[in-house]
């Protein structure tokens, strides 16, 4: 059994507030580097606005390219937040404690970044508000068309973004009060304002806990709806045979959870290295998250297999040629192999070993692999299906990403990490209150000669 160091509340405050109150100098260099990436992407987008959508690699029939792939990827990553916070909170899993806020914050920034992609993607982004409810066009007196999945999308994403932001703010309040008491000057005013007069009395705690549970339960349907709707962007189309599958909604959701939880594990490993939080993000947390990953990954793999088999089963020509393209033709065959290996066949067998699950470096690299695999999965779903839409072979095409698209994709990664890091500069990214509660509820049960770690459980 592993010995857990005894942490006092003083230790917790000191360690977890360190990035906020005493920011190391390298941190600013990191932020600067990421900001350069983001600025490059802004430049790329400005270039695209100035010159026209032609600067992207899209063509006819591949009208949706890397930007949509990346959109789906970031929406997928954003599914980790609720998956971890809400479900694990509702099921009272002790090991959720250090991971929740990092997951939620990753959700917010991933989702915000994802929401930018339609702006990059459309031909006339300055008019994109017409597709976002209410989006009333006063000149013509027209509302958005609710039949289109592109109207469901902004609705679901904005709901999810609002819900998650409320969730984060709500759970931040006790920690903000701690920060208010430890800062000075302008920041004290800001933290004081944000902590909304938190004193930590029983009534406030009760309200906060009830609100947390309510938000957890209410946000779950939103969480499922977001990626379902993203999948329906594709699946409702009768013209693209590779997309027109009934399994798409659950398949996308489980794939999103797969990549999202993997993303959270990567971020936790990075945080642990950057801020030396070995006592907070412990090996057994990685162990529990990896066990969850095994289940999620296997469920996802089942959906993948079903989707694929039922795609080829009616043995219809266009579908067969599409699947042949996906699996056997360059460059998709290489992509497909890398995708399978990275998305499932390398990480999951490795996670079966406890020594891997409890090794932070290995967990970091395997979860990174999962996300490379999942990015490729979206690529394999979106691009080849468009290349061979229907039996009319005359219009079959191909696609090469343009440099601008690559810059925007890279910039989106910089933006998400910039967001998460900036957050961790101003707010504690491991919830203090949760950590303290965990320590307070932690105990041991003696079974024979062994002390088994245990926790008090309120029911």
């Amino acid at each position, binding site marked *: 059994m592993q010995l857990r160091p005894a942490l006092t509340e003083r230790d917790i405050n000191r360690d977890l507030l360190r990035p906020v109150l005493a920011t190391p100098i390298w941190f600013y260099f990191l932020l600067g580097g990421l900001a350069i990436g983001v600025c490059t992407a802004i430049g790329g987008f400005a270039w695209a606005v100035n*010159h*026209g*959508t*032609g600067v992207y690699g*899209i*063509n*006819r*029939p591949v*009208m*949706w390219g890397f930007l949509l792939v990346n959109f789906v990827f970031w929406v997928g990553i954003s599914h980790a937040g609720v998956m971890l916070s809400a479900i694990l909170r509702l099921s009272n899993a002790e090991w959720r404690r250090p991971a929740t806020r990092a997951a939620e914050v990753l959700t917010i920034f991933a989702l915000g970044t994802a929401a930018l992609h*339609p702006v990059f*993607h*459309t*031909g*006339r*982004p300055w*008019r*994109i508000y*017409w*597709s976002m409810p209410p*989006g009333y*066009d006063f000149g*013509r007196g*027209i509302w*958005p*068309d609710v*039949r*289109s*999945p*592109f*109207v469901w999308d902004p609705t679901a994403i904005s709901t999810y973004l609002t819900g998650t932001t409320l969730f984060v703010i709500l759970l931040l309040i006790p920690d903000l009060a701690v920060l208010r008491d430890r800062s000075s000057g302008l920041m004290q005013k800001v933290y004081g304002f944000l902590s909304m007069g938190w004193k930590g009395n029983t009534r406030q705690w009760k309200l906060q806990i009830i609100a947390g549970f309510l938000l957890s339960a209410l946000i779950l349907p939103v969480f499922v709806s977001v990626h379902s709707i993203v999948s329906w*962007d594709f699946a*409702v*189309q*009768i*013209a*693209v045979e590779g997309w027109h599958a009934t399994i798409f909604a659950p398949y996308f959701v489980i794939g999103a959870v797969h990549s999202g939880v993997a993303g959270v594990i990567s971020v936790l490993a990075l945080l642990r290295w950057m801020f030396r939080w070995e006592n907070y993000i412990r090996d057994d947390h990685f162990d529990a998250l990896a066990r969850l990953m095994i289940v999620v990954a296997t469920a996802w793999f089942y959906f993948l297999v079903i989707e694929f088999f039922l795609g080829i089963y009616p043995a219809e020509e266009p579908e067969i040629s599409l699947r042949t393209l996906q699996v056997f033709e360059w460059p998709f065959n290489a992509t497909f192999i890398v995708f399978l290996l990275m998305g499932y066949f390398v990480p999951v067998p490795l996670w079966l070993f406890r020594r891997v699950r409890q090794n932070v470096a290995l967990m970091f690299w395997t979860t990174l692999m999962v996300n490379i695999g999942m990015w490729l999965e979206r690529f394999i779903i979106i691009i080849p299906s*468009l290349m061979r*839409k*229907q*039996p*009319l*072979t*005359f*219009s079959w*095409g*191909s696609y090469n990403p343009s440099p601008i698209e690559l810059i925007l994709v890279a910039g989106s990664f910089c933006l998400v990490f910039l967001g998460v890091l900036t957050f961790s500069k101003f707010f504690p990214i491991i919830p203090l209150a949760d950590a303290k509660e965990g320590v307070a509820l932690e105990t041991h049960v003696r079974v024979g000669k062994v002390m088994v770690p245990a926790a008090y459980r309120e029911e």
Partner: protein
Amino acid sequence: MAVERKWGMAVDADKCTGCQACVVACQSENNIPVNEPDHFLQRRAIQWIRIERYWEGEFPDVRARFVPMLCQHCENAPCESVCPVFATYHNNEGLNVQVYNRCIGTRFCANNDPWNVRFFNFWEPVWPETLRNQLNTDVSVRSRGIMEKCTFCIQRIRRTTRDAGLEGREVTDGDVVPACVQACPTNALVFGDLNDHDSQVAHLREDGRQYRILDHLGTEPSVYYMAKIDPYAAEGEHA
């Protein structure tokens, strides 16, 4: 107008020689920018009507098949319901119309269009100086970032209807002639009102050779094709 019109076209694949006259006529009638070789290489050329050429048979017994392909103006157009801003909709003359200045360029309609007959303006359109004066004043020039497609030369439909109204007569079959139909040297293309039972196109619809492309999708296209009569053909499928 007693009965609502439903414009439609009949395409006789047997008469089509693949001469591309319709393509050029459409290009100049509808202010479509010149498709340079680069545009084709990038697969971004805009051709509201195009001749799809399929090869049939094994070498050396190879034959070319030509299928003029244009917007099918479906009754249940799959491209319409996916547009988030109603930029494409069905009007009461059976036309699938595109509202250029409402379009925001999601390209959703292009994806959900099985015939690949919707075109995106990747760049601001430009014409060589010498062609400036040939632009059709009845047709708006589309800006970049929006979709466009065959309109069945709606400007000609409108002009003919208006002129007929001024002259106090009904629009009869053959009055409205889109540019491609006008230019076709073999009369492979026939345009008219499908609701008018005496029109040529309505008669052709009853023809035994008639078929519609991707009919199984149930979108009810308004473009009817007449199968090729090929004395040498083994029983093969067209397109």
